[in-house]
């Protein structure tokens, strides 16, 4: 692909997001690249780092307490995509803060920490403890509130689709995060995503990430039952690219808040489509799972144009 005439960004140059300078515009998406530590093993034999040129690794969502996640099977491949039902398996906020985040800092991995909770007010204390523990970290750039995981049914309601609740989550975190970028990750499983984005903006986010996975289901014809024990999963991968582009477009034109595009990106061309719609950065999810170098490759390709 040649550089398009409209391309104006410097993909691998630092850019401002709220109170923080982020090192680049191609990131990895939460849940598809672990805690940003596992892929270092690929550097040795490949003469290149999967982290090279990344603007951020958005770490696997952590919750106030550790979670074991959902029963197996958790993944179903479908045409052009996959359903997942991981159920937010994670080490818990405390272990993340004490062991994972310092290691990311030591390794120089640009990090955005993804947080989820079951009540809006839980976000405040987590943000405060992050600020207390990691204020001096050079590579910790921000927080992404996961307000949209379709695989967690606790509390019985999906609070990510209520503009008022989104605003409460954002406000709770913003109050404790004076000098880091704050993002809210939005669900596509809602009638009006621009309205969610607007209330996140009013409550003080620096950007919204869109989209999380699309609710989906697949049936195992051998049993006549859904493949996933929890019936529904989150649909991701190539198939959701047009959905993500539509949601990003609605936000970009209707909400007045910077947007980070996520969904179905596997190539430079896919990423460019989000930038064409006005996204300030992009995240690579499912494609990163089959290729630890997917995001780094996109970053390298876009970076070349920037400097030319």
């Amino acid at each position, binding site marked *: 692909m040649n550089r398009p005439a409209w391309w104006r960004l410097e993909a691998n140059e630092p850019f401002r997001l709220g109170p923080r300078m982020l090192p680049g515009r191609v990131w990895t998406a939460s*849940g*598809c*690249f*672990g805690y940003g530590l*596992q*892929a270092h*093993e*690929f550097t*040795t*034999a*490949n003469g290149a780092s999967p982290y090279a040129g990344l603007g951020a690794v958005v770490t*696997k969502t952590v919750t106030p307490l550790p979670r*074991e*996640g959902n029963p*197996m*099977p*958790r*993944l179903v*491949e*479908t045409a*052009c*995509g*996959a359903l*997942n039902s*991981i159920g937010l*398996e994670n080490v818990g906020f405390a272990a993340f803060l004490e062991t994972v985040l310092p290691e990311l800092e030591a390794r120089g991995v640009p990090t955005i920490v993804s947080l989820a909770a079951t009540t809006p007010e839980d976000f405040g204390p987590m943000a405060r403890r992050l600020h207390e523990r990691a204020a001096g970290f050079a590579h910790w750039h921000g927080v992404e509130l996961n307000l949209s995981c379709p695989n967690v049914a606790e509390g019985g309601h999906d609070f990510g689709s209520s503009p008022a609740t989104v605003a409460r989550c954002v406000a709770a975190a913003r109050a404790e995060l004076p000098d880091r970028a704050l993002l809210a990750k939005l669900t596509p499983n809602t009638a009006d995503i621009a309205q969610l984005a607007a209330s996140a903006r009013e409550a003080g986010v620096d950007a919204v990430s869109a989209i999380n996975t699309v609710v989906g289901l697949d049936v195992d014809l051998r049993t006549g039952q859904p493949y996933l024990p929890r019936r529904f999963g989150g649909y991701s*991968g*190539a198939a959701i690219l047009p959905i993500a582009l539509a949601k990003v477009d609605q936000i970009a034109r209707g909400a007045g808040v910077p947007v980070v595009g996520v969904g179905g990106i*596997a*190539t430079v061309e896919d990423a460019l489509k989000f930038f064409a719609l006005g996204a300030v950065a992009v995240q690579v999810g*499912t494609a*990163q*799972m*089959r*290729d*630890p*170098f997917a995001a780094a490759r996109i970053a390298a390709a876009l970076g070349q144009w920037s400097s030319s």
Partner: protein
Amino acid sequence: MNGRPAPLACVGEVIANGLVSSAFHRLDIALDRVFTFQPGQFVMINEPGPLAWTFSRPFSVLAADDRIVSILYRVVGRGTQAMAGLAPGRPVSVLGPLGEPFPAPVDGQTTVLLGGGVGLPPVYAWWQRWGLDGDVACFGARDGGEVPWGLLGGPWRISVDSPGCVPAGRQATTGVVTSLVDRDDALRGGERTVLLACGPQPLLRAAADLARRRGWRCLVSLEEHMGCGYGVCKGCVVRVADGDTVRNATCCHDGPVFDAARLPDLAAEAGGADAGGAKA
């Protein structure tokens, strides 16, 4: 985990791809670099570029020779069907070697290897690398036609569910693969015996059960559905005992090789007398 060879992420080229028995295909891929692995490790295979399947497919390494890596596979679905159609010269993306291997033998160890169906590659690779006269290598298949006789030389003990075609000069016992060692009195006692098994769940249960009865250590290689193969998605977890608690471990990174004693799913009551057929 330390000491695992550094994994490659590269695109290789098919140099041979064809049936080695009625059911198993062998795929040899030439890479641009030397490929080293430990027996029990696997690679993630995919089509490169825009034809890539959403998730790569895991396959145990059968053998490696300098820059060539070989796998053995059975066609079961979309991905393996596509693999069977890969002609020499076609590009294939390879990620690996990945995962925890079978341990190398220690001095004085007797090793019993049990492979069932497409669970053959890890035990085959172990046998090729470290097998000695006192060790016992066993393979179970559905019938004689399924057995890759050309790979499995004289010392291999073969069992089949039904005889089918067994080539002249070769032998196969009808029954489950564990029966090949169960009746072997030379292997009694042996607290220095280690059983390594890979195959379908009933085989692993029977293997764990046999090892328990004999007081052997037993390591099994598990299969789980995988997304990434390198520990980042948590799509492949298995339940593993850790002291008094049971926790999730990733099949791809913490495994696929686990000590059977730590796997509640292979616990005592699960193994039945008739288990152990090669149903893969």
